[in-house]
C-alpha cells in the first residue's frame, strides 16, 4: 500500500486490517537493508485483533521513495511525521523496531515522547557499532556485505534449516530481501547505525519490551541487556537458540512475547 508523506510515496502494509479510527496503532520499523515484509506475521496478528497497523518502508527502502536517510535521528523525525499524519486519532501508539529500526524507535521515544506510549525493541544495541569489514563491503556495494550480514544474522539452527515456517529457507529469504535494496542504501543504513549515540537523548520513560536472541552475533544479548539498563521502564525476553533474524527464526515466540506485552 502507498500513502504520501512530505510529497513522497511511503510504502507500508496494514496487515490486511480494517481498524476503527480510534483504534490503538502499532508502527513497525525494519532493520538495515530490509523492508516492511519482515513484519508480515505480527502485522497480520495485530491487525486481526483490531489494531491500526503500519509496517513501514523507511525512505529509500521497499516502496518508499528515497533518498535513504543519513542518520537514525532523521529516520525518527520522518517516523514522527508519519505518526502525526496517520494515527492522530489512535487511542495509543506503540512502535516496534528491529535492529536499526530499534534505534529509530529509541530516538523517537527520547525526542518525541508525546507521540508514543510503548516500545518493543528486537535485536537492539546502543551504540550499534558496525564492523569495518562489513561497512567497507557495503560502501563498495559488494555482495559480500549481504553474505556477511545475512550469515551472521542467523543462528546455528537457521544455518541448517528447520524453519518454523513450512517450506521456507530463512537464509535465502534474508538474502533476497537484502538484494532488493538499491546501491548505497545498505551503506547509508550501516553508517547510520555506526553513528548512533544516545548521549543527547532525554531519558526514555515509555514502557519497553526488549527481545534478545542468545545466538545473536549482530546485537548480542548483553547489548540488549545494556539497553534495558538504560531505560526507565523495561522488561526483557530472551529467545533461546535464536539469532538476530528473530522475526523469521522464531516467529511464534516473538509474537507471543509482543502479544503478552501489548495486550497483557
Amino acid at each position, binding site marked *: *500500500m502507498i500513502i504520501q508523506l512530505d510529497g513522497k510515496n511511503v510504502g507500508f*502494509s496494514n*496487515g*490486511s486490517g480494517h481498524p476503527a479510527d480510534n483504534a490503538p496503532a502499532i508502527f513497525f520499523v525494519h532493520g538495515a537493508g530490509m*523492508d516492511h*515484509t519482515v513484519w*508480515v*506475521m*505480527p*502485522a*497480520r*496478528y495485530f491487525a*486481526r485483533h483490531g489494531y491500526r497497523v503500519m509496517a513501514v518502508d523507511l525512505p529509500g527502502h*521497499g516502496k518508499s521513495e528515497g533518498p535513504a536517510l543519513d542518520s537514525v535521528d532523521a529516520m525518527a523525525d520522518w517516523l514522527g511525521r508519519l505518526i502525526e499524519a496517520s494515527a492522530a486519532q489512535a487511542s495509543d501508539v506503540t512502535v516496534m523496531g528491529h535492529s536499526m529500526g530499534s534505534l529509530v524507535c529509541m530516538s523517537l521515544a527520547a525526542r518525541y515522547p508525546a507521540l508514543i506510549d510503548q516500545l518493543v525493541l528486537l535485536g537492539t544495541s546502543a551504540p550499534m557499532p558496525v564492523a569495518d*569489514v562489513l561497512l*567497507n*563491503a557495503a560502501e*563498495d*556495494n*559488494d*555482495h*559480500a*556485505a*549481504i*553474505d*556477511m550480514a545475512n*550469515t*551472521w544474522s542467523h543462528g546455528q*539452527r537457521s*544455518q*541448517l*534449516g*528447520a*524453519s*518454523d*515456517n*513450512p*517450506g*521456507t*529457507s530463512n*537464509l*535465502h*529469504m534474508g538474502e*533476497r*530481501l537484502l*538484494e*532488493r535494496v538499491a*546501491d548505497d542504501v*545498505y551503506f547509508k543504513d550501516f553508517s547510520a547505525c555506526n553513528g548512533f549515540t544516545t548521549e543527547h537523548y532525554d531519558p526514555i520513560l515509555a514502557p519497553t519490551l526488549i527481545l534478545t536472541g542468545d545466538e545473536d552475533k549482530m546485537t548480542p544479548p548483553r547489548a540488549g541487556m545494556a539497553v534495558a539498563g538504560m531505560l526507565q521502564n523495561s522488561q526483557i525476553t530472551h529467545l533461546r537458540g535464536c539469532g538476530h533474524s528473530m522475526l523469521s527464526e522464531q*516467529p*511464534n515466540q516473538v*509474537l507471543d512475547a509482543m502479544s503478552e506485552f501489548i495486550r497483557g
Partner: protein
Amino acid sequence: MTNSKHRGPQGMGFDTLSLHAGQVPDPTTGARATPIYQSAAFVFPDSDVAAGLFNIERAGHVYSRLSNPTNAVLEERMAALDHGVGSVVTASGQAALHLAITTILSAGDHIVSSRSVYGGTHNLLEYTLSRFGISTTFVDPRDMDAFANAIQANTKLVFGEVLGNPGLEVLDIPSLSEVAHAHHLPLLIDATFVTPYLCQPIELGADLVVHSATKFLSGHGVVVGGVVVDGGTFDWQSSDKFPTLSEPYVGFHNLVFADEFGPAAFITRARKEGIRDFGACMAPMTAFQILQGLETLPLRMQKHVANALEVAAYLEQHDMVASVSYPGLPSHPDYELAQKMLPKGCGAVFSFEINGGRDAGRAFIESLNVFSHLANVGDAKSLVIHPASTTHHRVDEASLLASGIGPGLVRLSVGLEDAKDLINDLKGGLRAVEKLHKQAAAQQAENRS
C-alpha cells in the same frame, strides 16, 4: 550489489545441505532421521492460535494437504539446494508444473515454451491447459529470437527444460533469462534431469524451478512426487501482468501477496491457493523416501554422470549406432554450452539412434538383461525405452521424425551399476541388431537370386 572485491562467509556446502537442510534432531524424541508425521491434521492449543495459523500470523501446521512437518523438511531442503526462498512439494512432477503455472496464469494467458519438453508436459501445455484458456507457443530451445518473437501481450511465463527431450538440447538459461526479464516475464525451468547437484537454475537467472522428484532426487524408482521452488527473485509488481500476486485476492480476505510477503509472494500463494484448492499434495511417507534419496544425491549423481559418459562414448563408436545425443560428448551441438553451464556433468539420460529403424530398436530392447524396459528415468537401476515401439507405437514415421524421434531412437537412463556390465549388456543388444541386419541382407540376396 554485483561487486565481488570483498570476501563474504561461505554457507554450508551442498553435500552438507543434502543431508541436513530443513531438519535438526527431533526435539521431543531425539530421533536423528526425519520422523514421518502420518497425521492428517494437527491440534490447535486454543482458538486464537487456530485463527492465527489460518490467517498466516503464526508458523505451523493445520492440515496435511496444506503443509506437514515431514513434507516441510523436504521443502526446506529443496529450497536450500536450489537457492530458493521456499518450495512446495506436490503429488507428482506434473502436479508441480501445474501448480507453478496456475499460481500466476489464468484463462486468456499465454506461455512461451521450448518445444523440446517431456511428452507429458507437452500434453499439459498443448491440449489440457488450452481447454482452460491458457495457450502455449512452442519454439526451438536453441533460438533465443524465437522465444522473444513468440512473446505476446498476454504472455505471462517463459518455460523450458535444462536438457531437452529427446535431443538433450542444453537450454541457455542465462540468455533466456535475459529475454524473459526484458519482457518483465518470469522464467520457469524444469530441472528434473539435472537436479540441483548439476545445475541450479536460479543461480543462472531463472525465477522458478520445478522437479519431478520421482526421478534422480528420490533416485530409486519407488515414489512419485514433485516440487516447485520459488527463487524469490522476480518482482511481481513491476507490471500489471500478475494480478494473482499484485492485487487483492478475495479468496484470502483481499490479501495482496506481493505487498505482504515480498520475495515469498509466489510460494505463499502456491500454498495458500494452489495446494489448498487443487489439492495435489504429497504424502508424508513419500516425502520421507525422497529425503532418504536426497541424502546421497551428490554421490549418486557423480556415479550416474560417470557411467553415462562411459556408456555414451562406447555407443558413439559402434557401427550399429547412427548417432548419440549426449551433451557430455564433443559431438553434441551444445557441448561447449554444457561445459560452461553444467560443469559437473550432463546427467544420465540420453538417446541414440540405432541403424535399422523400428525393428532394430525392438530387437535391441528385447535383448537387454541389465537395463530394464520401462517408462521412467532417474532410477538407481539402468532403464531403457524405445519410443517408436512403445509410447509412440501408433505414430507414423513422418510424424515421429517431426517430433525429433527417429524410428530407431532409444532412450537410456544410465544407473549406478558397474559401467562394464552396462556396456556388456548393450553389446548384447547391438549384436541382436547386427544379426537382424545380416538376416535382412541374406533375405535381400535370396530375393535377388
